[in-house]
C-alpha cells in the first residue's frame, strides 16, 4: 500500500504505535528487542485473532460478547476430548466445528428472533462459560504433552501463534476488503433495510459473520490449551473487553458499516504494547484493566469527534 493512500485514522494508529514504542524503550531498556517482542506476542495472539473476527461482526452492525466464553467452553471441550484419548487431529477438527456451531447459534438467535446481538450474546456469554463450569467444576484438565507448547516452537523464526495470527490477518483482510461477502458485510452494517431492498441475503450474511466469530474462538481455544497446558472454566476472564477494544481502537464504528483489518492489526499491536509496557513496569492487573477501559473510551470519543463534522454537514 502506498503511504500517501493510507487513510488518516490508520496513520494516527501507526503514529501512536511508533511514539508508544519509543517512549517505552526510553523508560524500559531493552524493550524494543525484537526477540523479546516476538516472544511476548504469543500472549496476545488469541486476543488478536478474536479481534479479527470481531471486526466482521462489528462492521455488520452487531457485536459478539460471547466470543471469549465460546473460546473457554471450546477449550474445555478440547481438553476433555484429549484426556479421553481421542487422536489430536480429530480433536482439532471437532473443536472448531463445535465453536463454529456455538457462534452460528448466536447468529440464528439474532436473525430468528430479531433480537439485538448485544442481548443475545450477553446471554450466551453466561451460558457458554456456565456450561464450561458445569462440565469441569473447579477442576482443571491437563492437556497431553504432545499438544502443549506450540507457543514455544517456531516457524520461519516466528512463534506459531503469532504466525497463525499473521496468516489469519491476511485471510481476513482479503475476505473483508476484496470479496463480495466482505462488501455485503459492510452493506448490512451500513443500512440493513437498504440491503434487503438491494436483494442481499441479509439473514445468511449475519449468520455467517457470527459463525466466523465462532470459528475464531475454536482456533484460539486450541492455542490457549497449548499455551497453558491446562483447560479451566475461568480462563481468559474479561478477554472480550480486550477484543472489542482492539476492534474499536482499530476504527470499527460500533453502529456498523465501518472498520478495517489493517486498523485492527495496528490496534492489536498498540494494545499489546500498552499491556506489555505496563507488565514490565509492574503495573498491577487492576490498573491495566482500567487503562484498557480508558483506551476504549478514548477510541469511542475520538471516533465520535471524527463523526461530528459529518453529522452537522448540510443537505444542500
Amino acid at each position: 500500500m502506498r503511504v500517501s493512500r493510507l487513510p488518516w485514522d490508520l496513520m494516527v494508529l501507526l503514529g501512536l504505535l511508533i511514539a508508544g514504542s519509543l517512549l517505552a524503550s526510553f523508560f524500559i531498556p531493552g524493550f524494543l528487542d525484537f526477540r523479546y517482542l516476538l516472544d511476548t506476542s504469543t500472549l496476545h495472539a488469541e486476543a488478536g485473532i478474536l479481534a479479527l473476527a470481531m471486526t466482521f461482526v462489528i462492521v455488520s452492525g452487531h457485536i459478539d460478547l460471547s466470543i471469549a466464553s465460546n473460546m473457554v467452553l471450546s477449550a474445555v471441550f478440547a481438553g476433555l476430548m484429549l484426556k479421553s484419548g481421542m487422536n489430536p487431529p480429530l480433536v482439532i477438527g471437532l473443536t472448531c466445528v463445535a465453536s463454529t456451531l456455538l457462534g452460528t447459534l448466536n447468529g440464528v438467535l439474532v436473525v430468528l428472533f430479531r433480537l439485538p446481538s448485544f442481548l443475545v450474546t450477553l446471554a450466551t456469554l453466561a451460558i457458554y462459560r456456565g456450561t464450561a463450569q458445569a462440565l469441569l467444576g473447579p477442576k482443571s484438565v491437563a492437556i497431553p504433552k504432545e499438544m502443549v507448547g506450540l507457543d514455544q516452537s517456531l516457524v520461519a523464526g516466528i512463534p506459531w501463534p503469532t504466525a497463525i495470527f499473521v496468516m489469519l490477518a491476511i485471510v481476513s483482510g482479503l475476505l473483508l476488503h476484496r470479496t463480495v461477502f466482505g462488501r455485503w458485510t459492510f452493506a448490512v452494517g451500513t443500512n440493513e433495510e437498504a440491503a434487503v431492498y438491494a436483494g442481499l441475503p441479509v439473514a445468511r450474511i449475519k449468520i455467517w459473520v457470527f459463525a466466523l466469530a465462532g470459528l475464531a474462538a475454536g482456533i484460539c481455544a486450541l492455542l490457549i490449551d497449548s499455551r497453558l497446558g491446562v483447560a479451566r472454566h475461568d480462563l481468559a476472564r474479561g478477554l472480550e473487553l480486550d477484543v472489542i477494544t482492539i476492534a474499536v481502537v482499530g476504527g470499527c464504528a460500533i453502529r456498523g458499516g465501518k472498520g478495517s483489518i489493517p486498523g485492527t492489526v495496528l490496534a492489536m499491536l498498540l494494545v499489546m504494547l500498552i499491556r506489555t509496557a505496563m507488565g514490565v513496569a509492574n503495573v498491577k492487573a487492576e490498573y491495566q484493566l482500567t487503562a484498557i477501559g480508558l483506551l476504549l473510551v478514548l477510541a469511542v470519543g475520538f471516533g465520535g469527534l471524527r463523526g461530528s463534522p459529518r453529522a452537522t454537514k448540510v443537505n444542500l
Partner: protein
Amino acid sequence: MEVKGLSVTFGGVDVVSKVDLVLEPGEIHAVVGENGAGKSSLGKAIAGVYQPSAGTIAVGGSTVRLRNPADGLAHGIALIHQEPMTFADLSVAENVFVGHVPKRRGLVDWKQLYQRSKQLFADLGISIDVRQSAAHLSVAQQQFIELASALSHDSQVWIFDETTAPLTPKETSELFSIFRRLRDRGCAVMFVTHHLQEVFEVADRITVLRDGVKVAERLVAETNPGEVVQLMVGRDLDASGPITESANAEPILEVNSLTGPGFSEVSLTVHRGEIFGLAGLVGSGRTELARALAGVVRPTSGEILLSSTAKRFSSVHAAIEAGVAMVPEDRRRHGLFMSQSIQFNATMARLSELSRHGWLDHRKLEEVTVASGSDLRLAYRSTSQPVESLSGGNQQKVVLGRWLMTEPRVLILDEPTRGVDVGAKAEVHRVIRQLAEQGTAILVISSDLPEVLSLSTRVGVMRQGRLVATLDRGSATEESIMAAATGEGSA
C-alpha cells in the same frame, strides 16, 4: 436587510459564492435553484446557522455578525425549517415560547402563556388549540408553531427553507396566505424552493442561484417559468412530449387479483414499452403493492405473471433474477448506503455477477459505475466519493443506476423524483422514456400529478388498497385522477 459578497465554504468548496441579495420589507423574495445550488446554505448563513467565509450581512443599514441562530433571532431574522423540531411532551403554547416562557415570581405564568400564544396564532390567521400536546401535530402545524415563535420575537426578516416540501396542497396555500399576511405587515419574506409553480403563485421577486453563484434576479411579473428553468439549469431541458403508445404490445407484467398487506384484489397489466402511472393518495396502498411486486413482502393471494409465466418471489433477489427491479420511495432509508462510496452503492444489486468466484473485480466495478454515471449524467468527482456528499438528485441517479444495471424487464419506480431538483427530474424522465422505448415495462408511482400525466401511457388510481380506476391518456386529467383517488364524484 442586505447581503453583500456572501460566501459559505465547506471543506474548501464554496457552496455559496459572493452572493449579493437585498430583502426588502413588504416583499416576498423567492430564491430558487437546483439541489446543490446553495440556496439553503444562503438562507442558513443569513439566519446565523452557518458562518460566512466572506461578505457582510447588514440589518437596517448596520453590519451584523451572527454567531448562531439565537443571534439571528435577536436581530429579527427568523429561519423556518422544512421539518421543525417540536417537543412532543409540551403543549403547543409551551413550544411557541420555549426558551422565553412568560414568568411571574419565577413560575410559569400559564394564563399569559396561553393568551399570548393564542394572539400570535390569531395574528397569523391560524386556528389551533394552544393547550393541546404537540405530540400529534402534522408537519404543517409544527411549522406554524415555529412561525408563531418567530412572531413572538417580532422578527422582521423571515426565511422559509423549502417549507412547502412536506405539505399538502391545502396546507401550502394556508402557508402562502401567511406569507402575504407577513408581507402586508411590512416584513421581508425570503422563500427557498425549487417548485416554480409556487414561486409564480406567491413571490414578488426571484433570485436564481446556480452552483452557488447568483445568476439572475427578476421581478416575477417580468419573467416566466420557462426562462427561470433555463436560468436554473443553464441548459435546455429535454422536451417532455408524450411518447408514442404501444397499443398492441405484448403484456410483460400481469397482476391478477393480487392481495397482500395494504392492498387487495388488484389487477393490472403493463405492456412492453409501456409506462403505467400509479396515482393515489399517500396510504392508498401503492407502495405496498410495489413492495409485493418487487419481492420485499409476499402477497397473500392472487398471482403475478411475467411474460405470461406465473411467478412467486421468495425474496428481492428472486425478483431481480426474474427481471423485476424497484427504485424505492425513501432513498435514504431503503435505497442508499449513505456513508459508502458511489461505486459501492451503484453496484450493490449486481455485485455477484460483477465479480469472479466471489472476488471483487475492481476494474469491472469501476467501469460499470463510470458508464452508469455518464448514462445518467451524474455529477460527481470520484466513484469513491461517499453518496452522502451528493445532492438529492444525484443520489437518486445512483439508486436508479443500480437498478438499471440489473437490466430489468419490469422497472417499478416509487416517487422517482421526490425531493429532486428540476434538472435531475428532467434527467430521470428522459431515462424512463428511453427505457420504455427500449421495451422495458415501467410502473411509476407518483404523487406529482403533472409528472404522472406527462409520463404515463395509462394511469391507474388506487384508493384504500384497491385499484379503483384505470384511465387512458385521453381521459386522464388531474381532475379525473383526483376524483378517483378521493372517491368524490364518478371516476
